Each structure stands twice: as structure tokens, then as C-alpha cells.
């Protein structure tokens, strides 16, 4: 469970997150909102790339913000990026093993854990193949494998299905839905594909202009008037 309270991020004069308070309980949670709402900024705060001006984040009883960025990954904060970041120079196996070895997990179980993560995401590619040779969908899966290997506590997925064809998106959705049960981690999914979000997430939070405007069971949130207005942009047109 992670509890966010009063989280504020400013870039110069722009307030990206404005006193965001929200609790993500367990399972797979959605985080949606129009472009520029602050979803990726929120992820960047959790991964330690952005230092907030105010607010606290408690994750599983730990004060997340006091942890140095690279230590957070070792502790269990994992993420994927909007533009996928498979390390091209390395093999599929090494891409995943890299996370495992940095997390200081047992060397004896490394092979099994890494191959387990690769098969969990359903990546059929040869583990010794270079990541540069993979197709776009496979690279997305490889990134998810990196996020679930070892003992993740919090898996942040930043538009993992962007640019994927429907069939691959469906497969990715099944993988994402299985993450909490398979790894015991809390997963947060940011995506613009509402069918993916409703398929994967029991609960969803909605950001608009850095403010939390709704949160709760996904179906209810998607019917919320404020959410529809935020997406359609009809609110307060002067």
C-alpha cells in the first residue's frame, strides 16, 4: 500500500502536481488523466528523478522520498518508460539479470528468477538474443520482465501499450493483471487506453492539471461527470 499526501511538484512557474493525496491499496491500480495531468511526473517522483516541493509518500511503511533513486529500485520500486528502454547492447537475459544482480538478490536463484520473469511475460524470444533484434512488442514485454524480476514491491507501468496492436495489448493486459498475484507487488498502470485500464484495474485514480479529481472502483470513476468533463475539456470554457 502506498499513501501519498499533499504531493506538490513545481517546474519553474508550472505546478505539475498540486497537493495530490491518494492511497493505492493493492492489486493493479489505474492512474489516468488528460495529457499533461502529471501522471508521468508522479512516477518520476516515485522513482526519485524529480524532487517534490512538498508532500510525503509512504510505501509499505517506508518513507520513499528519503531513499536515493537507485536504491529505490533495489528496494522494490520498478518501472517501465513511456518510450521503451530495452538496453539494445545486452541480451534479453542480461537485460533482466541486470536488475536482479543490482537488487543484491541471491546469485543461486538468478538464472531461474530471470528465466521465470521472461516466461511470465510470455516473451518467446531466445534469451541470448540481443535486445536490439527484438520487435517493438517484445521490447515492451522485456521491459515488463525487468520490472517484475526478483521481489518488486511497486511496479509502475507508464503507457506500456502505447503503439502496440490490439492483440499484443490484450496479451499485455493479461500480464499486467497477473503481476500482483505473481509477484505480490502493487502495480500502477498509466495508460490512455480505457479498455486496457478497465480490463486490468479494480480501482483507478484520475489526475487533471496536477490535482486528483476522482478515485475509486474503475467502472464508477470512468462514469464520473468530472472525469468525463476533464477528458472532453468542456469544463469552464469561458
Amino acid at each position, binding site marked *: 500500500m502506498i499513501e501519498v499526501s499533499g504531493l506538490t511538484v513545481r517546474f519553474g512557474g508550472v505546478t505539475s502536481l498540486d497537493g495530490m493525496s491518494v492511497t493505492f491499496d493493492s492489486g493493479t491500480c489505474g492512474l489516468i488523466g488528460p495529457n499533461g495531468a502529471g501522471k508521468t511526473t508522479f512516477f518520476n517522483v516515485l*522513482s*526519485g*528523478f524529480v524532487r517534490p516541493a512538498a508532500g510525503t509518500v509512504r510505501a509499505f511503511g517506508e518513507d520513499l522520498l528519503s531513499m536515493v*533513486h*537507485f*536504491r529505490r*529500485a*533495489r528496494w522494490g520500486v*520498478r*518501472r517501465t*518508460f513511456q518510450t521503451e*528502454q530495452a*538496453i*539494445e*547492447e*545486452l541480451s534479453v*537475459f*542480461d537485460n533482466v*539479470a*541486470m*536488475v536482479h*544482480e*543490482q*537488487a543484491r538478490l541471491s546469485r543461486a536463484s538468478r*538464472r*531461474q528468477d530471470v*528465466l*521465470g520473469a*521472461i*516466461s*511470465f511475460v510470455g516473451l518467446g524470444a*531466445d*534469451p*541470448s538474443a540481443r535486445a536490439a533484434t527484438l520487435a517493438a512488442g517484445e521490447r515492451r514485454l522485456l521491459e515488463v520482465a*525487468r520490472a517484475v524480476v526478483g521481489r518488486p514491491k511497486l511496479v509502475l507501468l507508464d503507457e506500456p501499450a502505447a503503439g502496440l496492436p490490439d492483440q499484443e495489448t490484450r496479451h499485455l493486459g493479461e500480464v499486467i493483471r497477473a503481476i500482483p498475484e*505473481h509477484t505480490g507487488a502493487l502495480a500502477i498502470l498509466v495508460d490512455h487506453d480505457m479498455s486496457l485500464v478497465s480490463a486490468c484495474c479494480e480501482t483507478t485514480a484520475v489526475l487533471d492539471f496536477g490535482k486528483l479529481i476522482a478515485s475509486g472502483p474503475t467502472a464508477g470513476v470512468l462514469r464520473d461527470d468530472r472525469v468525463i468533463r476533464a477528458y472532453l475539456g468542456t469544463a469552464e470554457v469561458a
Partner: protein
Amino acid sequence: MLDTASRTAAGGQRSPLRRPDRRTLAQLAVITGLLLFAFFATPQLFSLYYIDAMTQVAVYSVVALGLGVLVGRVGMVSLGQVAVLTIGAWVAARLLFATTQPYPLVLLEAGVITMVLGTLIGLPALRLRGLYLALITLMLAGALAVVLTTTNFPNGGHGFLGYDASTVHIAAIRRPAIAESDPAYYRYAVVVAALMFLLVLIHIRTRPGRAWAAIRQSEPAALAAGINTTLYKLWAFALASFITGVAGGVLAGAVHYLYSITFPTQESITLLAAVLMGGAYSMWGAIVAALLLQLLPALLNNWGVSADWLTILFGIGVLQVLTTAPRGLADQVPKDLSRLGRLLLGLRRRPAPSGSDPA
């Protein structure tokens, strides 16, 4: 269901990861062949002039390898590597004059001291990148060159600097007892270089290599994978400085007398050009770079062509490589050779091409 899948995956994929494939075996064969040739054949086949040049090739292949680690593996451009080499040479020369320690120990000490100083040069890399890092390292190298012109290399004098301007007959820097002659010292240099290549290979194939690959492609992705990017960048500088320092120690014995004038600051720029031409992403590239830097001038010299032409040649070479073979000669030449091989094979199989076929 998932369990079965993971088990079959683990079982089926054990072999491709463990068993060395044909490519690795072929590479091993080539490496062994080259080492045997370099060690046994070269001293027999060539004149002392070329043996000395090949000693320099061995030294500079290690220097190029160090720069290759920084540029090719981590993506940090340093223009101070020749300055780092002079630090290694200075320290080794000082120790060789001051002590009677065995040569390998002196090389090790030169490597370690250079590693400490070289890592300090690498500190700006934590804040700067690209052109700015290149500029800073170049200026540090320039500053060091100024210091060296004033202090000179040790020549058997006393004191910390070990330089005595008054002596007429200056002492030669000693060589190991087992490698007094030029051919023997050449072999010694080859062995040291091979050990340095091995050291780098071990790094590249293990945890630091994977971390460097991640950092080079994307620092956020590296951080998100739990990689301490600061530590691994400094580690790269430490490794590059260590092997370059050892190379400096080998150089000191090779030339017997060291002069600051032989290490102009712009050598570091030429070094980068040669490394880019050879191929910064492969360890073979370092050997190609060293051949370009040391054997080519020796050849030109022997043919009576001024080595100054090399600056122009390297300029054209870098342009050519960057536009047509960004991974360098070490990557491009084998590809071209295999293409040529296929072409020749194809010609032999079809000796009489049908005249009607335009292709």
C-alpha cells in the same frame, strides 16, 4: 501452466547460454593465433625497427582500449588519455630509478597511482557530458602537459621529481632482467597488454559491463534498474586509468628515456580519432587503433613519406568511418570480407553467367 512454461523455457535455453557458440570459438581461435604470432613469429620475422614499433603498438592498444571503455561502453568522451599515459610513465620511471622493486610490481603501482589520479580527472564526468566533458578533460590534459614541461620526466636525479638538469650522461630507465633486449621486451609488452585486455574483457562480460551498457543508452533506465550510475562511471574511469597507467609503465622501459615533448596534448585528439576509426565498441578496435597510431607512422617513415600526412589521413578516415561504418573498422572489415567471400564463392559456383540475365 505457467510453471510448465517456465520449466521448458529454463530447460530449453540452458544450452544456448552456456555452450560457447561457433562465433565465440572462432574468435578464440583467432585470438590464440594472433597471440602466438605476435609472441613467437613477429620477433623472428621483423627488423628491430619494426619490433620497436610493435612494442609501441602493444602499449597504445592498451591506451586505446581504455578510451574505448570510456567512449564505447559508457559514452563518456575523454580527451585526456595521453595525459593519463604520461602520469603512468612518470610514476613508473620515478619508481624504477628510486627502487629495485621487480618490474611487475612497479607496473602495478604505476597502474594504481594513475588510477587514483585518473579517477579524479573523471570527476567532472559526473556532472558534465558530451562536448563539455571532452573540453574539460582536454584542458586538464593541457594543464598537466604544462606541469610536465617544467618538472620533466625523472632521469635518475634525486628528490621527489627525480630530475637532474646538470647531468650529461643520463641514466636509462631500466627494463626487467628477463626482457633486456628489444625483442624480449616486445614480448613482455605483448603479455602485459594481453593481461590488460583480459581484465577489461572480464569487466565487460560481468556486472560492470551490463551497468555501463545501460548507462550509455539511458541513465534514467539505468537508475530505474537500481544501477548506481555515479559509482559505475567512476569505475570506468578507474579501470581505464589503471590500464593506461600500466601501459605508461611499459612505455617507460620501452623507450629508456622519456621527454615531455613526446607527449603533446593534441595526441589525445589523434588517439580519439584512431579509436573511432578502429571501432570504439569492440576490443578489436583498440588493436586496429594502435596499429594506425604506431605502425602506420613507422611504415610511412620507412618509405620516406612524412608522418604529417597522417593528420589529414586520419581526418578523412574519421569522416569516412562516421558516415559509412559508425562501428569502426573492427566491425566493418570482417563484414566486408565475408561479403567478398560470398561474392567470390558465388562467382566460382556460377562460372558462366547466362548472358540474357541482366543481374
